[in-house]
């Protein structure tokens, strides 16, 4: 019996220790654990965002009790952290309280739903969701509505009329921009392939199909050999990139549709000494992918404006709470990074966004 108590006590102490460690380490990284809540009230940081600077909503002090719960698809990677930085900057500018919580992986629908349910119970005033799945998120959106809380979406959409508005990158247009860049760089000639991330995601398919359609319409002499989807894992993407190049020895260009696939394609091109010989247009400019532009492995990268997306989401959420009139949809736009503008202030704000 004594042994049992001793062991239980040890176990309890280990749990307490772990909790205190988590508590101590959270201020630096607000996204330390998946379920952790991030309270960002008024940090007097300035924001530099062309798309979303002027604050519509009323004076800062009056907004303090307004709680906007924001749910990204995940919190891993530069992309979501830029969204978070934008959302927090907006929260500081507008004086509202936000939380920014995502599941650990971008396939954990159940995890996201649990986080949203918690926010309903915590009495959120507006809920902003980046739906993991256009169908799978319908029930939780209905649940939020039933609780009398207005919903908006950002980043992606859900097949439902309930969300008041949506803030997102037009991914088809982003794909078209990638197709246009690849067509320009390849001067409208030669075979090209597309490496996509997750096939089950509408936005992933839109980027690939948008690029392909644009090239079909504008560069009829270019030949599309394959659109191949890896499952989003970096090592699997490396294999897919290598195998596409092996299977198509006369390949002249590749378009990759997110950060992971872009790292994969650039790595394989460098490993095989094909940098510059096979043209590469990537997606999502980050610290690592920016290096491929500078080394000449990747000629151009289509990039979203995640900081703007975060900022605009919180701003629109507040407008919804204030019952102001909002548009049915907001496009946060995208941009093309290449050798000529990679060091410009505008692009660096996207590549190395202001930290939280």
């Amino acid at each position, binding site marked *: 019996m004594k042994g049992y108590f001793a062991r239980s006590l040890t176990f309890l102490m280990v749990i307490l220790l772990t909790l205190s460690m988590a508590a101590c380490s959270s201020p630096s990284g607000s996204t330390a654990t998946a379920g952790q809540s991030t309270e960002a009230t008024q940090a007097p940081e300035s924001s530099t965002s062309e798309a979303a600077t002027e604050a519509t909503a009323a004076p800062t002090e009056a907004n303090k009790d307004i709680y906007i719960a924001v749910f990204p698809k995940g919190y891993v990677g530069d992309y979501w952290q830029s969204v978070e930085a934008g959302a927090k900057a907006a929260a500081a500018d507008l004086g509202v309280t936000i939380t920014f919580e995502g599941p650990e992986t971008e396939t954990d629908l159940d995890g996201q739903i649990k986080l949203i349910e918690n926010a309903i119970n915590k009495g959120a005033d507006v809920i902003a969701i980046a739906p993991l799945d256009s169908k799978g998120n319908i029930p939780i959106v209905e649940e939020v509505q039933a609780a009398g809380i207005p919903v908006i979406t950002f980043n992606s959409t859900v097949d439902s009329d309930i969300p008041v508005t949506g803030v997102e990158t037009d991914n088809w247009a982003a794909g078209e921009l990638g197709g246009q860049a690849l067509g320009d760089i390849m001067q409208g000639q030669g075979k090209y392939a597309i490496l996509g991330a997750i096939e089950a995601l509408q936005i992933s398919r839109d980027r690939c199909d948008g690029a392909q359609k644009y090239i079909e319409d504008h560069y009829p002499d270019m030949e599309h050999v394959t659109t191949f989807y890896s499952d989003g894992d970096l090592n699997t993407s490396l294999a897919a990139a*290598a195998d596409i190049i092996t299977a198509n020895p006369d390949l002249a260009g590749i378009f990759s549709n997110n950060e992971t696939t872009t790292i994969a394609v650039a790595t394989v091109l460098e490993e095989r000494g094909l940098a510059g010989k096979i043209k590469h247009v990537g997606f999502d400019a980050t610290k690592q992918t920016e290096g491929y532009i500078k080394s000449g492995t990747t000629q151009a990268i289509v990039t979203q404006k995640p900081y703007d997306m975060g900022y605009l989401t919180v701003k629109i959420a507040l407008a919804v709470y204030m019952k102001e009139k909002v548009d049915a949809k907001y496009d946060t736009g995208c941009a093309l990074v290449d050798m000529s503008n990679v060091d410009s202030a505008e692009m660096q704000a996207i590549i190395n966004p202001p930290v939280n």
Partner: protein
Amino acid sequence: MSRSSLLKNMSNNTKQTMTVVIALLVLMVVFSIASPYFLQTNNLMTIGLQTSITCITGYGLTFVLIAGAVDLSVGSCIAFTGVMCALLIQAGLSPSLAVVMTLLIGGLVGFLNAVMVTKMRMPPFIATLGALMALRGLALAITEAKPVFIDVPNFKLLAQYRLFGVIPLPVIYMLALGLLASFLLRKTVIGRNVFAVGSNEEAARLSGISVFKIQIFVYVFSGVMASVAGIILASRVTSGQPAIASGYEANAIAAAVIGGTSMRGGHGSIIGTIFGALILGVLMNGLNLMNISQNWQMFATGIVVIFAVYIDKLRSMQGV
């Protein structure tokens, strides 16, 4: 074990390995007909490169499985050690020192797994499942979920350099570690004791084998192998990626099981695991070359694993 049963055991091992080799050859023939690029040197080297991660992680799992346990934490351990390696280099350590430290960290992870399984008497499945989640969480937490970029030009040579301009270094590591692991398992007392513990733990204990030490040995070995894989991946993409290698424990276990390692312990070989990993690698590469989608690849891999487990089951019913 009497001499005759030992012989019988050996021949069954050989038989099992032959089955896997034949399966691999059949696959290769099919793919070489389906794609003219399959048998090119460059592509064969790519297969080696792609197989190395699964194979090296699989060596560790082979030891653990033969000892009658399991290690589910290796996928997370790959990410955790890769991230640690990147952070150590970023902190100013020389790449070689960082690599040594990372191997030690991998060993420490294995040691903690072993302590949970032996001293704390937790079922290996649950203990290492906990480690899987804890290590992934730790990898994400210490990096704030961002990739850690390695800005040292030499480091990437570790995985990207090609011997004689042809053979990627990870393939060399895979073969060298395979030789070492096979030697440990078959030619040393500790290797024989791993088999003994996996066949019958109680009997091994009674015959004076320290089950505790053997468990420590297999888990530390598995942790170190996972950290080798972590270092290779980090070098290949010149960054520590906290989200990488999710689910790779399944690949490593599959490679071992396809190669004839028994999930019930006491049975298995390193050469089998190499061929098991090659079957998985060839399958993925060949289907990629044929432009067959990732979804069907996963399906095909699953069927191969089920088939391999079925063969394992048949063997156990024959009382081997």
